[in-house]
Each structure stands twice: as structure tokens, then as C-alpha cells.
């Protein structure tokens, strides 16, 4: 059975599938939060979700609008102070997966959430790095979820907010960073993984109906493909049902508040 679904739903579901039941996941607001909670509500019921507001092991029934919604604290195992969160939990190396998004990404999965244009004279001033610069180096690995377009998938970032694979190859190791960095990039069109040698983000799976031409049209650099490129399995009925129920609950809760 095939069902209708949006590219954003495909992206969220593909990202959710990448999470494992024994992961400890540092979650950002927005799409990462939707994907992480979808994973928890489907195949990864024991996944530990952590938000930088200090909530450890939180199990929200609706998606938070902000990183510190009451729902996150009320359903958490416990809540620690923000200095403790960044010292003991993030820097302490206790997180297996950090989930990031961004306004710009380059082919080595470095991210920009700071500024479009020059730093001193920005065309668009973005919110800034928040937790990302340290999430990017302290988590075991990084999953990135981003809507793909030429504007966001750029040959060169205007500003490096958080480190991906740097200039590629062993650049992280040369910076004395031992964590794996971005191991998965999930977009509304495809799934990327780093090439084992160059560390360039490489297409490993394309979502149903997406063509190589369309992919390239939405990417600011010449794309590389893995030797074998899979087709992403479409969302299952159950995945869509759980995701849509989650989003409907969320919409109701936010409207009521």
C-alpha cells in the first residue's frame, strides 16, 4: 500500500529511522525534535532524549515549541542546570547522537546558523550557534536534518558555526576531535553519508520519485553518489500515522495554550 506523504514527512521519517533504541540523543528544536520523538514512539521506545534546557530522558507527548517547554521537564527523568548539561552531559561524552539542522551546509557537512553574508554586515542575521559548536564535537556522531535547496546547500559557508568534517579527510582528527562527526544527512530528497576517505557527504539513498537531476538542481556543489544508491523505503502507514498524530496533538496543545 502506498500513501500520500509530503517530502517533509519523508525527511522526518527517514531521520527517525536512523536512530537506534539504545541511543542517547541530544535534540534540537524543530525537525530534529519531530524525528527523535517519532523514533521514540515507533521503533526506539527506550531512546534517551536530552534537550539542552537540562531535561534528561524526557518523553513529551507533544512536540515542544521551545527548547524549554514545560512538557519537557514534566516528562523527564530529571532536569539539571544548564551549566551541568553542557559540562557533565555534553562535554562529558555521554551523548551518542547529536541532532542538528542549519541554514547552510557545505559538502563536508559543516553548518552555518549564524549569518548570511559578511559577519559585520549581514544580509540575514540568523539566531546563532546555540549549543551547536560543542554538540558537533562532543557527541559520538551527528545526524543532520535539513530541507535541500541551492540556497542552503552551498559550495562555501558564509560562516562556519559548527564543525562537520572540516576540509574533509582526517581534518577532525587533526583538530584533536575524536568523535565521528556527521555520519548522516537526511533531506527532503535524499540521505547522505560521508565518503569513508574524503568525508564528502555522498548520496546513499534517494527518496521515492526523486531524480538525480532534481537532486543536483537543489545542491550548490557537484554531487557525489555512492557506488550503490538505494531508494529510501517510503513511509509506512504506521510511521505516517504516528507522526501525524504527534503533530496533530502538538497543534492542538499549542493552540490551546
Amino acid at each position, binding site marked *: 500500500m502506498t500513501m500520500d506523504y509530503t517530502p517533509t514527512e519523508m525527511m522526518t521519517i527517514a531521520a527517525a529511522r536512523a536512530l537506534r533504541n539504545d541511543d542517547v540523543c541530544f535534540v534540537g528544536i524543530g525537525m530534529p525534535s519531530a524525528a527523535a520523538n517519532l523514533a521514540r514512539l515507533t521503533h526506539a521506545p527506550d531512546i534517551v532524549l536530552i534537550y539542552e534546557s537540562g531535561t534528561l530522558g524526557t518523553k513529551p507527548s507533544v512536540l515542544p515549541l521551545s527548547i524549554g517547554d514545560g512538557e519537557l521537564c514534566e516528562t523527564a527523568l530529571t532536569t539539571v542546570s544548564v551549566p551541568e548539561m553542557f559540562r557533565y552531559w555534553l562535554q562529558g561524552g555521554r551523548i551518542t547522537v547529536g541532532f542538528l539542522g542549519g541554514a547552510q551546509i557545505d559538502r563536508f557537512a559543516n553548518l552555518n546558523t549564524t549569518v548570511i553574508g559578511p559577519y559585520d554586515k549581514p544580509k540575514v*542575521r540568523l539566531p*546563532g550557534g546555540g549549543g551547536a559548536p560543542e554538540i558537533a564535537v562532543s557527541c559520538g556522531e551527528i545526524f543532520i536534518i535539513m530541507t535541500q535547496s541551492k540556497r542552503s546547500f552551498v559550495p562555501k559557508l558564509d560562516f562556519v558555526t559548527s564543525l562537520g568534517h572540516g576540509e574533509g579527510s582526517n581534518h577532525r582528527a587533526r583538530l584533536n576531535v575524536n568523535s565521528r562527526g556527521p555520519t548522516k544527512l537526511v533531506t527532503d530528497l535524499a540521505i547522505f553519508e560521508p565518503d569513508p576517505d574524503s568525508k564528502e557527504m555522498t548520496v546513499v539513498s534517494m527518496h521515492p520519485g526523486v531524480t538525480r537531476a532534481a537532486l543536483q538542481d537543489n545542491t550548490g556543489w557537484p554531487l557525489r553518489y555512492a557506488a550503490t544508491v538505494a531508494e529510501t523505503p517510503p513511509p509506512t502507514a504506521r510511521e505516517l500515522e504516528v507522526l501525524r498524530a504527534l503533530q496533530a496533538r502538538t497543534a492542538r496543545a499549542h493552540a490551546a495554550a
Partner: protein
Amino acid sequence: MSRFLSLAEAVEWTVRDGDTVAMEGFTHLIPFAAGHEVIRQRRKRLTLVRMTPDLLYDQLVGMGCAEKLVFSWAGNPGVGLLHRVRDATENGWPAPLAIEEHSHAAMANAYEAGAAGLPCAIFRGYIGVDLPKVNPNIRQITCPFTGETLTAVPAIRPDAAIVHAQKADRAGNVLLEGILGVQKEAVLAAKRSLVTVEEIVENFGPRSPNAAILPAWTVGAIAHVPGGAYPSYALGYYRRDNAYYKAWDAIARERETFLAWMKANVLERGPEAFAVHSQRARQAAE
């Protein structure tokens, strides 16, 4: 030793022109009522420090209270950018606004170092990124045992810290619960502090032996402002008004709508206007 004051008196005592002020709150317990009083008192040339400046700092900046913003994530969470902050940084309206930008880890560590009486914090951060190129307050330090290069940032020691909390007792101790953010650190790191509270109780009664409490002798002024964190929330009292946050985007987009809103909702009102938000939640729960 903490003193109970009206909000107007408390803000007058705590915040002076030119001060470095931290009004903290990590989504939770944001001291909106106190921030509005700062606006009404027409404070000027403030350096505003906060990890997550959102609507309250947009309002302060738009009303011309600030000359500098120190932050790690500036936005309207889940909604968008801060139009007033942008207008100030890009167009100097109503006054130019300098920025000093950090990561969350840097600021959390810097508050921690401030509370701990240290001149700087060390952490593992800012690796392979551009912020150190634009922020001279990000430096390096070498571990004398391993030789590892670590990052150092100056401690945050504000002139004034303002936070909101659930309860004060009659002795002037303050109890915080839920998402604690860096509020305790901000108060301990500051020269002067103001805590607005939802309620004042005779004593805190049964509680965790490890409750997050600011003892009276670490707090400057306490003002009783029920609902004072609205439109953010106070765990156990009222929920976040997400609609307010969403509506702000349109209000703040243009100078005129912003000024009209501030006049009607801040300049011509007082802290008592916040009480209704606390009461509504109480009624809803009954």
C-alpha cells in the same frame, strides 16, 4: 540579605544606566514583568547578557535601553528572528547595538565561573569554527598535565541579575524548580540581584533536601509579581502562552506596530497586569 520591595523600587535599586544586566531564563521563568519595569524606568546604555535573548530583549532593545547584547542564541523560539534586535544592529534604530556572540557551552561555563568567583572558564569548545575569529573574548589555554589546548572565556560577572522564581519564604530565601537554566549562577555571579516570585510563603515546607534554593543572604531584592514570567511559564503555576510568541512576530516587524504595542502593554501598564495570567491558570485548573 534580601529585601522585599515593590517591583518599581526593586528595579530602581538593581539596575542603573550603563549596567551589565543579565535577565536570565531558559524558556522557563523569564522575568518579563521586571524587564518591562526596566523599560518603564527608561534605563539606558545597558549591556544585556543572556544565553537565549527572545521577546523580552527584543522589547528592551526596541525601546532603546541597550547598547550591547551578549548572547549565544537570539531568536523567537520556534517562530523566527528578533526584528527589533535586527533593526538595532543593522540600522541603529532606535540606538546602535553592538553584539558579542558565544556558544551556549561558553556562556553556561562563563556563568558557572562567575558564580564560582573565577576570572575565566575553561572548556572544550569552538573547535574548527569561525566565532573565535570575530570574538576576541575566546582564547586558548593549555592543560599543564596533558598539553591539550582548551578554550577559555571570561567569567560573566554582571552588575545586575534579574530572574523569576516560583517562591520566596518570609525569610527571603528563594526556591526554583523545573528548568533551572543559569538563573542560580546569574544571581550568584552578579553584584546586585532581583528575584520576582509567583508567591511568598511562610516557609517552603516539605521539599527535596537538595532543592534549588537561593538563600536570603545571596539575593538582593525580592518583588512579589504573580504571573511575572508571562508569556513564558512558571512550572506549577501557568503554561507558556505560545500564541503570544507567535503574535510577536507581526507586532515587532514594524517600528510603528511595535511602539504602539509597547505603549499600550508596557508603558501604560504596571506589574499588576501580570497577575491575571497566574489567576487564569489557577481557574483553569479548578
